[in-house]
């Protein structure tokens, strides 16, 4: 009889072929020239090329701004949603997470079309607005989840001991909800940095983000440079998940 731990073997083989090997291929292509010889030229090209660097800086800036705006607008919304005093209906919560389940491309396009009809010129402002629009549900939901599961006795104890409502909020609620904020940041920051298409739609191709130049290089058969850019993104993901290790899983549980 087969041991039950062996049931994972088909999936392990599958993951080696479709997860591990492809990532190794990114590294391999990143350090090869067109003829398959080892080179550092692709990676060093990124660090010396002004265009790539400024695109990267802009993407980083947009990603940080988007994440901050999502926290600033999303946290109060999540707090109100989780507060029984203000919101008792589960439908309101559903309304906030519903956009997560609709194709981002469709929503982005609808937003861009609305801007067009209203006569608003597409540019950095509309890009940021559209990004916030696309990603804020991903910030609200994990924060809402942690806030609604908070043990109320901490806040009540603080109140009983004479803390003012603001003090309770800043010293009890906010620190306890940080894991939710962290998973929200993970679900907003990396995707913003890596989107393509969305930035093209929202700026009429005027502004390119990091994801766009990866896509352009791959599509114009410059696989090695494209892979080098993807490799740099992989490094950033590695670093950022080290900081927020483990939070991702908790956020994904029970997304519906």
């Amino acid at each position, binding site marked *: 009889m*087969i*041991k*039950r*731990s*062996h*049931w*994972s*073997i*088909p*999936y392990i083989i*599958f993951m080696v072929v*479709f*997860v*591990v090997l492809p990532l190794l*291929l*990114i590294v391999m*292509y990143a350090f090869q020239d067109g003829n398959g010889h080892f080179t550092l030229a692709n990676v060093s090209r990124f660090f010396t090329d002004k265009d790539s660097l400024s695109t990267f800086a802009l993407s980083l800036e947009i990603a940080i701004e988007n994440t901050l705006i999502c926290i600033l607008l999303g946290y109060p*919304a999540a707090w*109100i949603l989780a*507060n029984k005093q*203000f*919101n008792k209906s*589960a*439908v309101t919560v*559903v309304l*906030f997470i*519903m*956009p997560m*389940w*609709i*194709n*981002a*491309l*469709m*929503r982005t*396009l*609808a937003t861009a*079309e*609305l801007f*067009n009809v209203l006569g608003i010129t597409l540019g950095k402002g509309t890009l940021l607005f559209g990004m916030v*629009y696309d990603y804020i549900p991903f910030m609200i939901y994990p924060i809402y989840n942690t806030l609604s599961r908070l043990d109320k006795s901490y806040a009540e104890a603080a109140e009983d001991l004479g803390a003012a409502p603001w003090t309770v909020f800043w010293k009890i609620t906010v620190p306890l909800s940080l894991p939710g904020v962290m998973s929200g940041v993970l679900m907003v920051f*990396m*995707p913003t940095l*890596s*989107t*393509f298409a969305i930035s*093209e739609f929202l700026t009429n191709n005027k502004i390119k983000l990091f*994801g766009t130049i*990866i*896509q352009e290089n*791959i599509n114009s058969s410059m*696989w090695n440079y494209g*892979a080098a850019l*993807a490799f740099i993104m*992989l490094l950033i*993901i590695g670093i950022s998940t080290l900081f927020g290790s483990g939070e991702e*899983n908790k956020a*994904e*549980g029970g997304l*519906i």
Partner: protein
Amino acid sequence: MKKFIAKAYLWILLGLLYAPLVFIAIFSFTEARVLGNWTGFSTQLYTNLFTGNAGGGSALLSAVRNTLLIALIASLVSTLLGTVAAVGIHNMKGRSKAAVQFVNNIPMINPDIITGVSLFLLFVFPHFSQGYVTVVLAHITFCTPYVVLSVMPKLAQMNPNIYEAALDLGAKPSQAFWKVLVPELRPGMVTGFLLSFTMSIDDFAVTFFTRGTIGLDTLSTYIYTDARKGGLTPELRPLMTIIFLLVLVLLVVFNIRQHRAVAKSQAK
């Protein structure tokens, strides 16, 4: 007063979130080819969409068909592969278990574009021709981890002895699997299947990199190409409206059911 401000804040935010969707929905009921022009109420675009005539209607319909077919196959295979894998991982120990779980997390952490580019290189490396098969394989890759994660908690809750009991009482392993394990794990499998299905439908980046050059379009890639040509196919408006409503109804029904289930289990 406080309550009023809180409510108002929520509704303003919701208003902003839904403005573009409502805008599309309103203009799905007029015939004008250019979005934003109102030429009177008409359901012509809906008729065009379903009969597949006019302005790229048939290409749109086939994109919808591809999207659904790919999502169905990918989520069925993912559910099976992920459930069997979850049983295996649940029974593993120590470092090998941690390693498998780590690799299982990779596709969930990676942005779509990394998954897309890495799989593109995988298929291009041995000159594997890209099309339906590669897109489905790619979707299975990013869907299965969610199935594993949905089934694992159910395994932890389950009494491990009932499967052994079935074997001791003479059930073949396959019988024990279908008659004992699957019914116990069903809620997790359903969640995993639904997650996979929606993620497959929503996907753009991974499909974009793995669909090759045979002209295979899903709804996302169709929209992308269409928008880059400038001027959206007007029939997309009724299609988007239908999808918005469908998702909304499904989510509300699903949540109400979940609330009832929770209330029931608390009442016990």
